[in-house]
């Protein structure tokens, strides 16, 4: 397998009902963050040492440049739709086929900060279920080995 160094940008981040609104120009970082919750299984007579029960949840996280002066901006959108489940489509790099689609719960994020400088704020939007990963590496991995280029 040849070495690959995937880097973001230029890409897109669409939020809301399809086709969604593009906010990629506000986001200085975007990432899908899996979190694993693991609890011990209950030993039984038949299985005295059961494997742990694990579940993985996902969140769309990142960093955005404050744009609270724009009534159509990302910050105002998140404030108005705080707690609502919305569709998202994240394309890390438009030159590549990898696209993540799914639903996430929008959370308002911090507004303001230091005076006289560009302010960035982290956001974290928990996903509903597991986002769908199409194209890019996932599509390649799903192909039979003989079809790989």
């Amino acid at each position, binding site marked *: 397998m040849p070495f690959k160094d995937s880097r*973001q*940008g*230029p*890409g*897109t*981040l669409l939020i809301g009902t399809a086709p969604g609104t*593009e906010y*990629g*120009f*506000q*986001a*200085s970082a*975007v990432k899908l963050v899996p979190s694993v919750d693991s609890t011990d299984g209950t030993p039984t007579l038949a299985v005295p040492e059961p494997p742990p029960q694990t579940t993985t949840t996902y969140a769309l996280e990142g960093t955005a*440049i404050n744009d609270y002066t724009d009534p159509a901006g990302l910050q105002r959108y998140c404030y108005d739709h705080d707690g609502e489940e919305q569709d998202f489509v994240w394309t*890390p790099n438009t030159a590549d086929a990898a696209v993540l689609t799914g639903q996430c719960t929008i959370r308002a994020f911090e507004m303001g900060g230091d*005076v*006289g*400088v*560009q302010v960035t704020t982290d956001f974290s939007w928990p996903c509903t279920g597991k986002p769908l990963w199409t194209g890019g590496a996932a599509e390649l991995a799903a192909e039979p080995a003989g079809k790989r280029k």
Partner: protein
Amino acid sequence: MSVVQNPIAAAVISALDDLVFAIQAAGCPCTRNDQDFQPPAAIVTPPSFVGGTLAGLTVNVPVYFVAPDTGMAGWEQIMELYGRAYHALGSRDAVSTLWVSPLNPDGLPAYLVSVTITIEG
């Protein structure tokens, strides 16, 4: 005549021009061409590319407010100009320094302000 054809370069040039216009609109003479630069005035100089967003890029633009000479009157002139442009710049940090160019190799007193701009691209 500009040699710029690439859309990213054109977007940066356009942002620099917007910055020049904003400073001029605040009442401070400003240019980004050192050939027609006449202190006391501000000059917008070539930016550094410092990162970006998913669909854009961020540049830091050094802006110099340059005095015509080394006397106190020159400093007061550029304090006046910086005061006028203060809100247009969106930056509160101004460092006293020297502005050096091929036309002024010994340098002239100046305030340096670094302006961060993110451009959709």
